[in-house]
């Protein structure tokens, strides 16, 4: 159950092509932009003009979740509540497609423009989000530059799929399917994902037995939270330690979470790990 909360966090945090509500770019760029989603926070921070972005979500400054937590501290934080966002008098709110629908509906009823960006499922969609955010903020040129840099770096880091067989294994045995951004990052870096062998397109719980039988050479996990939990205790199981081997598991950083150019860091880390 908690896995879903964390997964929900991941889903809500990633951005994508707006499935609804993304209108044509306004004639005058918005001057007071509020972001209420971890991934739109980062895209907005990367592309906004000085003074254009007036608030980001509280996750943006959290070092455990946000790769841009230092920049995130420079902006006032909001907690995703309709009342507090309304009182900031924004002319544009950017959110994710899985942001609280009650809040989004309320803001729209109050006459505020809310643009929702979908989660990113493949690396191709990263330039698309950059373009969308650029259009929303009236910063198309900045977006185009970032897209060009991203495409160049991506080409350099892509590798043929002859690398080690890898698996994701998070607390509670949660693993990722082939339809996820993390899968795309992994395979672009040249690794082979066991989710392809097991035919798992959706993310979900994988029994430890099945992980052991799949026998991956490379295991990706998350860094543990403070305190104790049974979900994380699973990753201390002797059988898991045997699979992971002497080298230990690869700890995925928070660059993996959102579909921003920061995924290049994740790719770089993976490519280095191959050597």
């Amino acid at each position, binding site marked *: *159950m*908690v*896995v879903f*909360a*964390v997964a929900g966090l991941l889903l809500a945090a990633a951005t994508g092509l707006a499935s609804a509500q993304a209108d044509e770019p306004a004639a005058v760029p918005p001057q007071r932009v509020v972001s209420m989603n971890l991934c739109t926070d980062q895209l907005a921070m990367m592309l906004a003009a000085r003074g254009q972005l007036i608030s980001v979500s509280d996750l943006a400054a959290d070092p455990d979740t946000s790769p841009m937590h230092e920049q995130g501290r420079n902006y006032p934080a909001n907690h995703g509540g309709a009342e507090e966002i309304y009182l900031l008098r924004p002319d544009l709110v950017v959110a994710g497609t899985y942001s609280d629908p009650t809040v989004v509906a309320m803001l729209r009823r109050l006459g505020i423009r809310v643009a929702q960006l979908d989660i990113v499922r493949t690396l191709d969609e990263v330039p698309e989000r950059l373009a969308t955010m650029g259009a929303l903020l009236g910063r198309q040129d900045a977006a185009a530059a970032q897209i060009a840099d991203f495409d160049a770096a991506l080409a350099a880091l892509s590798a043929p799929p002859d690398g080690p067989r890898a698996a994701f294994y998070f*607390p*509670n*045995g949660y693993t990722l399917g082939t339809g996820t951004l993390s899968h795309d990052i992994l395979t672009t870096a040249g690794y082979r994902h066991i989710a392809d062998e097991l035919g798992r397109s959706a993310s*979900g*719980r994988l*029994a*430890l*037995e*099945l992980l*052991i*039988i799949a*026998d991956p050479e490379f295991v990706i996990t998350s860094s543990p*939270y*403070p*305190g*104790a*939990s*049974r*979900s*994380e*205790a*699973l990753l201390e*199981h*002797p*059988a898991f330690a*045997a*699979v992971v081997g002497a080298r230990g598991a690869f700890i995925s950083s928070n660059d993996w979470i959102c579909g921003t150019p920061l995924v290049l860091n994740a790719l770089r880390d993976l490519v280095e790990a191959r050597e």
Partner: protein
Amino acid sequence: MRVFVILSALVVILFGASLLIGPAGFGPAESLRALLGEQGDAVTLVMREIRLPRAILGVMVGISLGLSGAALQGYLRNPLAEPGLIGVSGSAALGAVIALQTGVAASFALALPLAALTGALIAVFLILALAGPRGGSLTLILAGIAISALAGALTSLALNLSPNPFAVSEIIFWMMGSLADRSFTHVWLALPFMAVGWVLLARLGRGLDALTLGEDAAEALGIRLDRLRLMLVLGVAASVGAATAVAGAIGFVGLVVPHMLRPFVGARPGALLWASALGGAAMVLAADIAVRLVLPDRDLQLGVLMAIVGAPLFLHLIYKTRRQL
């Protein structure tokens, strides 16, 4: 004795079945070869590090719960007594959760079962003080409700206060119990305490038999009731505490097993002790097999099945003994 042979055979068969059932679908021959052989491959790892400790733990937990239930019922002379219902398991879970969330459990290895044992000890003391030998069923059930409710609420609070985001939803593990994803670490952690508990409880047979005639007659037959009570308290706390520390609070085993086996041992409390130990092992193994067959992909808690079987029986027992309530 026929009952002993049948129960032992049942435990052996269920133990074997537990070894052969799991999400990784390899056949019995391959499983046994991997278990006994020397290869270090994946199948051996699964058999030796996942399935074997799980089956062993099922037996250990079942013995602890069955034995404790039979001992409590024999002492209180009440068929409604069992460690889950009277709040002993819940209090043990509270002790374990506090040890884990305060980090004490990480400081030295045996801290976790000791903390659970302490929680169980407090509950047993309270129950005996409130509903002691002369207390009736009503007092017993009410005291059990109060202790269970308090322990459950405090456990939930402790988990909510945890800095770990996963801990909050793990109340369900602690309240319902599960043997999934346990390892030999948990076996070695629980075994010393359980062994002590089993030894203490196994020696109560003579005294519990004599208690059939009431405390006065039992004392006059040469039974030291104060010593018996102490051994009961320590034995139940140690075995149930250790079981709860590694598998969460599993209820109803100590209620169902003695009840079902009582007619087969001539209602003698002493004989019921070892019969319930074996019967408890069989019941926990059977339930653990069932959770893997019924909903293999989900983490179905053991306590769910126990409650489905045990709660109706509990209601039936209340109905049958309602005139004494």
